[in-house]
Every structure is written in C-alpha cells, then in structure tokens.
C-alpha cells in the first residue's frame, strides 16, 4: 500500500471538502434551521387544518431514509443541478429533527409569558417575535448545533445522486489509482479535524447558556 497517495489525493479531496461538503453543510443547516422553525410555529397553530398536515409531513420525512428521499427529489426535480437537490433534501430532512428542538425550546418558555402577552393585547405574531422566540433561542442553539454536525456526517449520501462531495472525490481517486485505504483514511481525518473542534465549541456554548 502506498501511503503517499494521501498526499497526492489531498489537493482534490480538500477542494471537494470546501467546495461541496462544507458548503452543503452550511447552506443545508440554514435551510433546516429556517424550515424547522416554520414547522414548529405551524405545529402550534390553533387550527387542526394546519397542525395535522404538518405533523403528518414531518413524521413521514423523519421516518424514511435520507437516501431514498434524495433519489425521490432527484427524480422529481431532475432538471436542477444535483448540488441544489442535495442541499435542499439535506435541509428538508434535518428540518424535521430541528423542528423538534424548536418545539422543546418553545415549550420551555413559561406559559405565563403567553398569558402576560395576551393580557397586554399583544398580537400573536408580535408575541412570537418579541417575547417567545428571543427566550427560546438560548434553549435551542445547542440542539441545532448537534444536528448541524450530524448533517455534516451525512453529506457522503449526496454522492448517490452524483454530487462530487469529498468522499466521492476520494473514491474516484482510489479507483483510478487502486489506493482505497489511504484516501479513505484521509477523508476520515478531515471529518475528524472539522467536527471534533465544532463539538467542543458546541459543548462550551451549552455550558455558557446554562444547560
């Protein structure tokens, strides 16, 4: 086995990491965080016509495999670039987990806050924006961060619809040069180098927010 292949593969692998894997994670997290909040707020609507469909959709996405969802969206939206489809599906998939984080964070805001807002006649939308969400944010940041890291580790799935993310790039190099172990080791090291410090930072944040 030729461990110097790690060095030879490094430029193309690290380029794929920054251009595809990292970008997918960051944009996917933004999509998931925004959409997850939408699910959580709709889930608290007063009409069943809203809460029940939202619940069904969220449960469905949460309980089916990401890989199948990627294929399904790719078939549906085949004309779009695969990177866009991949990021959208990562975002949608993880939004269903993040909505649960939001739900818990919002539930942790005491009921008296809603009641005080009602007693002051504050409209519901203003109560969300000015009273509830600012208090919920500190409850949800650690949970959202953990799912962002999880999403990062799911990015290799994007290769099934042909996205050239880091692991796929490494695999291509491996099959061209018959050097699989070194290039996959390289991928593992890059994942570790990126997610371990992020986890530590998350844990620090959690402590600072008093969890």
């Amino acid at each position, binding site marked *: 086995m030729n461990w110097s292949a790690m060095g030879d593969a490094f430029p193309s692998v690290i380029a794929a990491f920054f251009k595809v894997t990292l970008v997918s994670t960051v944009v996917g997290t933004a999509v998931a965080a925004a959409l997850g909040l939408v699910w959580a707020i709709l889930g608290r609507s007063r009409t069943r016509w809203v809460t029940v469909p939202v619940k069904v959709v969220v449960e469905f996405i949460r309980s089916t495999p990401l890989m199948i969802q990627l294929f399904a969206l790719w078939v549906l939206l085949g004309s779009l670039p695969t990177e866009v489809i991949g990021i959208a599906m990562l975002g949608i998939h993880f939004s269903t987990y993040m909505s649960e984080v939001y739900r818990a964070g919002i539930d942790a805001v*005491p009921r008296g*806050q809603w009641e*005080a807002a009602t007693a*002051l*006649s*504050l409209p519901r939308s*203003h109560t969300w924006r*000015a*009273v509830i969400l*600012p208090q919920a944010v500190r409850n949800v940041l650690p949970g959202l961060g953990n799912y962002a890291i999880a999403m990062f580790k799911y990015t290799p799935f994007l290769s099934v619809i042909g996205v050239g993310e880091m692991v796929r790039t490494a695999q291509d190099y491996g099959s061209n040069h018959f050097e699989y172990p070194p290039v996959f080791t390289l991928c593992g090291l890059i994942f570790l180098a990126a997610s371990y410090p992020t986890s530590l930072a998350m844990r620090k944040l959690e402590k600072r927010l008093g969890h």
Partner: protein
Amino acid sequence: MATEPANPEADASATAPSAACIKFDQVVKRFGSNTVLDHLDFSVDRGERVTLIGPSGSGKTTILRLLMTLEKVNDGVIWVDDEPFSHMRTPGGQLRPANEKHLSAIRRKIGMVFQQFNLFPNMRVLQNITEAPIHVLGQDRAKAEARARELLEMVGLGDRADAHPSQLSGGQQQRVAIARALAMDPEILLLDEVTSALDPELVADVLNVLRDVARETDITMLIVTHEMQFARDVSHRVLMFDHGRIVESGPPDQIFGNPTEERTQRFLRAVLEER
C-alpha cells in the same frame, strides 16, 4: 379623585340598560367533569372595586381568567359595558361564541396583574412597559417612554428603567408589572393574589402602590387577595365564594366584621389562624 361605585339607579336613565361594567349571566365553566363555576350570576359597577375571597379551588382565579380571555365559558354569557364579551352578535342579533378577532378587540379594556409577575425577561424594565403601548395602541416611542417613566416614578422605581427584570426583587418586579398594566389605560384591572409570591417584607410596598391606584384612578378592579386589611381599605364590596357560587356578599366592614354565613365565618377564622 376617589370615585364612589356608580349608583345603578342613577345611571339607568342613560342609554345603557344598566350601569354594570361587568356582568356574569349564568356562567358555567367546567374543566373536564369538574364544574368550577355553576350558573354564576354577578355584576360589578363602573369604577367599583370588588374583592373576591374564598377557599382554594373556589373559582376565583377562573373568574379573572375568563375576563382576561385566557379561558372560555362553557355556558352563559359575560357582558362588559353592556356588550357581549364572551360572545358576539351575529347579523341576526343572535349571540354566538366569540372568535379570536372579537376577543382581541375587546380584551384591550382589561388589564391583569399575575401572582408570578410574568415580566418579559428578555426586555429591560422600560421596554416591558412600553412594548404594548407602542405596538398595540400605536403610541410613538417618545410618548410611550415618557408615560412609562411617570408610571415607574409612581410605583417608586423611577431609577430602575434600564434594569433587567432579573436584577429586581419580587416586589419590585410586581410593581413594574402593575405599571405595565396601567400603561395600557385599562378600564378594568384584574389582580390575582399579586402579593402571594412575595417575601412578607416586600408585600407592603406593592399594596401601597395599589392603594394609590385605587385612590387616584376610577379603574374598575376585581381583586383576589388574602390580605384582609388591604381588601377592607380599597374595596367597595366583597364577594365570598365557595365551590364556584357566591355564598355571601356585602361591604367589607360587614363581611369581615360581622359575616352572617357560617361558611364565611369559618373561612375567615381559617385565614386569621394562618397568619
């Protein structure tokens, strides 16, 4: 300008059919199979201050929460200023349960101070007070802040406008909550055991603020309290509740000094022994 409770006889000549500011008409409230208010009738005049007393679970808080639209009636109608409050009129003149639009229009007349203060911890004291005047009444910021500072002065916290609620004692937080409710110029103020969560030495300041409010405004007040001396000082009338019904009602001197009902006597003895 202390106002006497409006006299129903005198006001009846006006267009309004009665002077009642609040009227409960055969109100029923259930939680599951537990009937908390059972065809309750009572009314409160404009400017009147009424204290509700009674044992735990007798329905006092429920009455205030119904008025604050935090709960809905199961049967009967609540009227405020001779307009249906728990209900609304259909074009045909029938009454049907209020929708959110009706409630949000009508609840502005009413303010409430809670046992647990419920200040917004993410806002400073001043913003707690100005938030609703600015975003609900549409006051401009300068006017709302000037009024908020006046109210803070009145509750003895003129120098704490920029504090966070967590930096205040319970008694101070409750005085801010009173200022916050008053900033909306409510016609009716609901006070639910506003000193029960406070350390004993902080109670007097809060009660004195409320005595000032009673003396200087003509706000209609519904008060739930175990502070009997305070109730005697500020209220025009006391209602004694048990199991969601009024057992006895009368002026404070009579209810506290010479109650006729055995249930009232027993309750007052129990409260006195607690102290």
